[in-house]
């Protein structure tokens, strides 16, 4: 079959015949089909409840999908933009005469440029999403094993953040509170409520780790030294 002229935007004085040999085109076509099938199947397998066929394909091609970082569902602000965002408030204490540090993260004052602020925001959102998951599982009395796994995952991440703060400040104690900042209905804002109204912030109780609420962590240097890695059974 003769090769037809090529794409519309090519210059008119060009020799536009297809130049790759048939074997090369066949080999490249197979590679393209496999790649694009996976590009499509990865998000398809992530939509709840998820396509078993897509899941099977992706699972069998995990080395390619994971190592190549095409393991994304593209759920930007989906299924709904969050009705809240999460912050963390941490308190760092010292046994010597250094003053206690209390900060909120993310903070435009502390993290600059905006991209760095957003990276910190994603850290707090990750912790918040794990906490929301624990809440959700507890709300409908999910199987105990599932709830325990979610709580371990939450605790592990909170502990990791706490360890970082202890080390970064050479501190002796640190506590972390998770703060949920609710987005008010626009009708409330029309009525004069501000977006940073104090009533929109919910702080979850400090220590010990709340099973029915959101994470809270308080660890000290001796605990840090003795701490064992916390097993995670199901990490997406």
């Amino acid at each position: 079959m003769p090769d037809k002229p090529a794409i519309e935007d090519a210059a008119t004085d060009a020799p536009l015949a297809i130049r790759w040999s048939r074997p090369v085109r066949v080999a490249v076509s197979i590679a393209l089909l496999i790649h694009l099938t996976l590009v499509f199947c990865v998000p398809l397998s992530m939509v709840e409840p998820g396509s078993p066929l897509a899941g099977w394909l992706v699972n069998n091609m995990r080395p390619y999908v994971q190592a190549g970082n095409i393991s994304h569902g593209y759920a930007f602000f989906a299924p709904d933009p969050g009705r809240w965002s999460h912050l963390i408030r941490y308190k760092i204490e010292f046994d010597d005469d250094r003053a206690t540090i209390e900060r909120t993260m993310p903070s435009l004052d502390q993290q600059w440029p905006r991209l760095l602020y957003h990276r910190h925001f994603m850290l707090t959102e990750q912790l918040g999403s794990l906490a929301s998951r624990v809440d959700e599982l507890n709300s409908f009395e999910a199987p105990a094993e599932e709830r325990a796994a979610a709580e371990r995952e939450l605790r592990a991440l909170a502990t990791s953040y706490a360890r970082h703060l202890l080390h970064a400040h050479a501190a002796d104690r640190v506590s972390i509170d998770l703060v949920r900042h609710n987005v008010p209905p626009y009708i409330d804002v029309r009525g004069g409520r501000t977006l940073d109204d104090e009533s929109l912030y919910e702080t979850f109780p400090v220590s010990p780790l709340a099973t029915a609420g959101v994470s809270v962590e308080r660890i000290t240097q001796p605990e840090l030294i003795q701490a064992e890695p916390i097993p995670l059974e199901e990490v997406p």
Partner: protein
Amino acid sequence: MNGCVHAARTATIDWFGDVLAGWNRFWFAPTDPATLCLVRILGGAMLFYTHLVWSRDLLAFFGPNAWLSRDLLVQRHEGTYFWTVFRHLDAPSAIWGFHLFALAVFFCLMIGAFTRVSSVLAFLLMLTYLHRVPTALFGLDQINTIIAMYLMIGPAGARYSFDRWWKKRRGRIEADDHAPIWSTSANVALRLMQIHMCVMYFFAATRKLLGASWWDGSAMWLAFGNLEYQSIPMHWLAEWPMLIVVLSHVTIAWELSYAALIWPKMTRGVMLIGAVLLHLGIAIFLGMATFGLAMIIGNLAFLPSRFTRGLLERRPPGSGTRGEFRQ
């Protein structure tokens, strides 16, 4: 009866022949890599900036005592194929040395220096960063991956690059920069980028359709009314509820129709203008300038190379005396 069978057989063979010819034209017709090179400059700049920003707090994210501890990272990576060099770097000097090397690579990609090598290295380096900080990632990293992945495939340094300038200086190519360059792999790279953008918007839209707020039109308020996202005050939007609804519906309609309407010449321009407006909106109002700009860069893959050359070159495209073929 025999005549009917023969006609059906001929029609079927012709149909398959047309499909095959269409497939070949779509993927394997050589094109000028001008658009791919434009994506390289802007995508390379975004990769450089994205990683430059890590420098402000490098050890807090990539050091042995990072926010996400190495123990926890190892547990997360167990049984997976995620990989990162940072698991094996302890000394701050080693981490900084590696980081400076990576920045140099991203810079080379941006200016088109040693592009074949720098594009592959840039993709691998980007992955090693991403896999160390899974808790700090967002949409920017997904679009960066797409751009970097496909820049490896085509001759992204064929135009507007240090490589091109160096070849001219050494006399390896004619000084006439306006002669067309024909490359099949440039077309493959651009086609892959185009299709990946379509898949991304398709799922971005269909996953939104599972949420009630995109149906009742309140979604955009939840996004704009979120103080942690806002880069400029947006509370005034509460006074315009119908505008919120319109913005929500237009976003869904645009994303949902993208994969179909970006291909015909008649609607491509409108869809690209829509992309610029949508993503500039995210960049300006929702505090994600990098994400918004990176998405616009991804959309540039749909620019015809003649248009790109007309935009970037003073002489009209195709005015060169003879062309140059590349794989």
